[in-house]
């Protein structure tokens, strides 16, 4: 119908005028009415207005046309006129969008929409009738949208974002324009996406790495204060009462709240590994995550992300067992906060437990933390409870979930504490008790001041965990310490001795290293005297010395100086030999001290060489330096002023070698599990180890040294273990 006018043109108009004019009975002729009506309706440029006419006359004209059943023709004529004017808005749009494309200033879009609304208002049929208006609106919007360039939705979006910060009153006007122009219906999905984007932006701006406050609450406040008021304009239009408006908006608010939870949840899941590292400082982030998870079920994503991060950052040869354990403990604590039923925990903890079981030094690490060497692995304030022998079953169907609103403090008082969790990595606690015994033995034997109260306290605590019976052995060890002190007290009273031994019950201590060492000279006498004193006090018992253990504080009085040191019995024995004659061969020393192997003797000699007391003559003989040497035979000899220093000085070179030795364990593991590898691959895997900063050349040097030692072979470009 739109083409009617074009097809029939002026000819048709004139003929109609004739027909209608002939039957004209009212005061207004049809031709005149047509003229008045079309001229009133005719769309014009903004600065041009229809000829001033009495409103009543225009209305009468339209009615006259209606009576003649010619309204459809009037409408067609109007549409034809409208089409002739559409180039006005087209060029308006093109100019504005051109400027917007250049400046990206949403204000251009705002002005454009303002102008478009003006055009709309200028052209809206007057007088109005329902059918005329609908027709106009449809035609106007059809033209409008056909002119909008592809870039318009984005520009419109930018404008919407701009409105979010604006006062409600001004937004009401702006949104009325959108509504009039049909933008709100057409771009409904844009509206929501603008808010989604704002939420994501807000989360990205305020939440990453902010784990020490409740961000979810902040976001919800922001949503309430910034977004909700804005929503009224687009989503509650047409509401007649406040209740109406609230009902219309509540659904969409809930959708946006969901998006807040989801976005924050995604972020926290991405950060979860570091959140656990930061625990308990990151408590608030965990509570947020828990709350988000009740809205959004991202549990599977959480499990996947954490397992992946653990695999990449924790469960590799370069990670320290202590660190793995401490992260494991934190993981348990954190996931109990996030997911009280413990299903997530089981899925995440299981691979860590399996990995830890395979590490040779896991038990040792756990045990040293049990006796207080583990740093902060175990919380001092934690109530000790008995260790369950059965591994903790995270998938226990009888597990009772905690009430959802129970605070995190509620969790920590669970009977299964950290130590239980650690011990439960293994099926039996016997391994722990055994390792514990070894560690305790080392610590007790190192005690020289007779003060082992700390160890006693540790054992008391551990008794609560492992049971009295399991620690009976340790109990005897402690009693040996007390008895030694008491007996020594008695023996000293009978006749002073510089010797203060620890006398142990051999079957209750872990196996101690054997040695052939036999103490010479005055040391032998001291031993024998003490032994006699002991047997006098305990007539049916006697002492069997473990001569290589313990330490000796002695002075070496030389002609020009006195060297005061604390040394091992072996070192003491060696220097004692030199008091009878000044030059000794390696073999002589070895035989005299009980057929010791040369490496052991060499090590003992080195101490004295470093103290400048003995010099290496070459040809396997050693000479006492009765006078301090000025021209050192060996560069290892140190100046006099640090001779009194009893702490072993570790050079940085040694430290580096030691560090490389740590990596040997990993290299060995790799070569065992994977088989022969080229150096690049070894280097690549080592690089995953934290702190590993060696170059491939340095690694090469190390491997070469290992090859010389017969530890590895190099064949066909591949390194492999020599087995």
């Amino acid at each position, binding site marked *: 119908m739109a083409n009617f006018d074009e097809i029939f043109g002026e000819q048709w108009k004139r003929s109609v005028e004739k027909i209608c004019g002939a039957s004209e009975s009212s005061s207004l002729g049809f031709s005149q009415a047509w003229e008045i009506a079309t001229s009133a309706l005719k769309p014009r440029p903004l600065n041009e207005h229809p000829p001033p006419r009495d409103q009543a006359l225009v209305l009468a004209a339209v009615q006259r046309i209606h009576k003649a059943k010619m309204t459809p023709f009037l409408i067609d004529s109007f549409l034809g006129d409208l089409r002739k004017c559409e180039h006005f808005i087209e060029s308006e749009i093109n100019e504005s969008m051109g400027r917007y494309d250049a400046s990206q200033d949403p204000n251009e879009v705002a002005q454009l929409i303002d102008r478009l609304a003006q055009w709309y208002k200028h052209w809206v049929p007057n007088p109005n009738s329902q059918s005329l208006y609908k027709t106009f609106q449809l035609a106007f919007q059809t033209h409008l949208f056909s002119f909008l360039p592809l870039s318009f939705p984005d520009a419109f979006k930018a404008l919407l974002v701009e409105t979010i910060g604006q006062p409600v009153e001004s937004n009401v006007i702006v949104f009325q324009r959108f509504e009039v122009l049909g933008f709100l219906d057409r771009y409904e999905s844009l509206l929501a996406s603008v808010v989604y984007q704002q939420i994501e932006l807000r989360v990205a701006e305020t939440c990453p790495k902010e784990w020490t406050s409740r961000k979810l609450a902040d976001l919800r406040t922001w949503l309430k204060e910034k977004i909700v008021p804005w929503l009224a304009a687009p989503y509650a239009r047409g509401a007649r009462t406040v209740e109406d408006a609230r009902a219309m908006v509540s659904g969409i608010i809930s959708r946006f709240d969901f998006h807040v939870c989801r976005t924050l949840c995604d972020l926290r899941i991405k950060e979860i590994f570091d959140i656990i590292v930061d625990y308990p400082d990151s408590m608030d982030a965990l509570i947020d995550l828990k709350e988000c998870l009740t809205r959004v079920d991202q549990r599977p994503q959480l499990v996947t992300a954490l397992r992946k991060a653990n695999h990449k950052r924790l469960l590799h040869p370069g990670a320290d067992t202590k660190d793995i354990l401490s992260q494991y403990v934190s993981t348990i604590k954190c996931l109990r906060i996030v997911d009280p039923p413990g299903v997530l925990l089981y899925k995440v903890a299981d691979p860590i437990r399996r990995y830890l079981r395979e590490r040779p030094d896991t038990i040792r690490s756990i045990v040293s933390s049990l006796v207080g060497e583990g740093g902060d692995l175990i919380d001092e304030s934690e109530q000790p409870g008995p260790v369950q022998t059965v591994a903790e079953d995270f998938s226990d169907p009888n597990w009772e979930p905690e009430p959802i609103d129970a605070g995190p403090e509620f969790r920590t008082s669970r009977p299964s504490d950290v130590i239980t969790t650690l011990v439960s990595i293994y099926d039996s606690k016997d391994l722990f008790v055994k390792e514990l015994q070894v560690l305790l033995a080392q610590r007790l034997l190192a005690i020289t001041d007779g003060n082992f109260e700390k160890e006693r306290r540790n054992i008391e605590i551990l008794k609560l965990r492992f049971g009295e019976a399991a620690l009976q052995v340790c109990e005897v060890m402690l009693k040996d310490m007390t008895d030694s002190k008491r007996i020594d007290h008695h023996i000293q009273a009978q006749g002073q001795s*510089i010797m203060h031994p*620890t006398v142990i019950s051999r079957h209750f201590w872990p196996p101690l290293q054997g040695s052939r060492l036999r103490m010479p000279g005055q040391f032998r006498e001291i031993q024998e005297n003490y032994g006699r004193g002991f047997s*006098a006090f305990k007539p049916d018992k006697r002492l069997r*010395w473990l001569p290589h253990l313990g330490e000796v504080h*002695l002075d070496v009085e030389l002609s020009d100086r006195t060297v005061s040191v604390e040394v091992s019995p072996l070192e003491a024995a060696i220097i004692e030999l030199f008091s009878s004659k000044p030059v000794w061969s390696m073999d002589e020393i070895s035989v005299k001290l009980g057929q010791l192997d040369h490496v052991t003797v060499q090590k003992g000699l080195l101490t004295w060489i470093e103290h400048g007391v003995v010099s290496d003559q070459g040809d396997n003989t050693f000479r006492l330096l009765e006078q301090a040497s000025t021209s050192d035979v060996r560069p290892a000899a140190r100046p006099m002023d640090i001779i009194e220093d009893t702490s072993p000085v570790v050079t940085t070179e040694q430290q580096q070698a030691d560090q490389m030795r740590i990596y040997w364990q990993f290299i060995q593991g790799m070569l065992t599990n994977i088989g022969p590898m080229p150096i690049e691959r070894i280097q690549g895997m080592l690089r995953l180890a934290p702190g590993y900063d060696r170059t491939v050349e340095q690694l090469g040097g190390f491997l070469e040294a290992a090859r010389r030692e017969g530890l590895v072979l190099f064949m066909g470009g591949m390194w492999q273990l020599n087995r």
Partner: protein
Amino acid sequence: MKVTVKRWHAIAQWQWDTGTRSDPNTEQEGAGNQTQNDDDEDGDGDVCGICRVAYEGCCPTCKVPGDDCPLIWGECSHVFHMHCLLKWIGTAASKQQCPMDRRTWVTAERKVAAS
């Protein structure tokens, strides 16, 4: 040159002087230098014939070794944990005999400080 020992923290194990064992600290000289002074030298002679636990361990009813679980010497030269022997003698089957040689049990007067 002179070495002056100011303090010596030594480690030793205690042993029952059963009278049948040589001095643990000198036995090496007799046996040659190859004998290692470690834990593997326990022969059958060093365990209680009743409970088969080492003398320096303790009987099955005790938890602490040494003076709390002492040894008892028989005239027949057999040595047991005292608690083990008394328990054995308390049974009718023992007929008051040494469980090793079935001779009537007579507790020996303990010789004092042989060395």
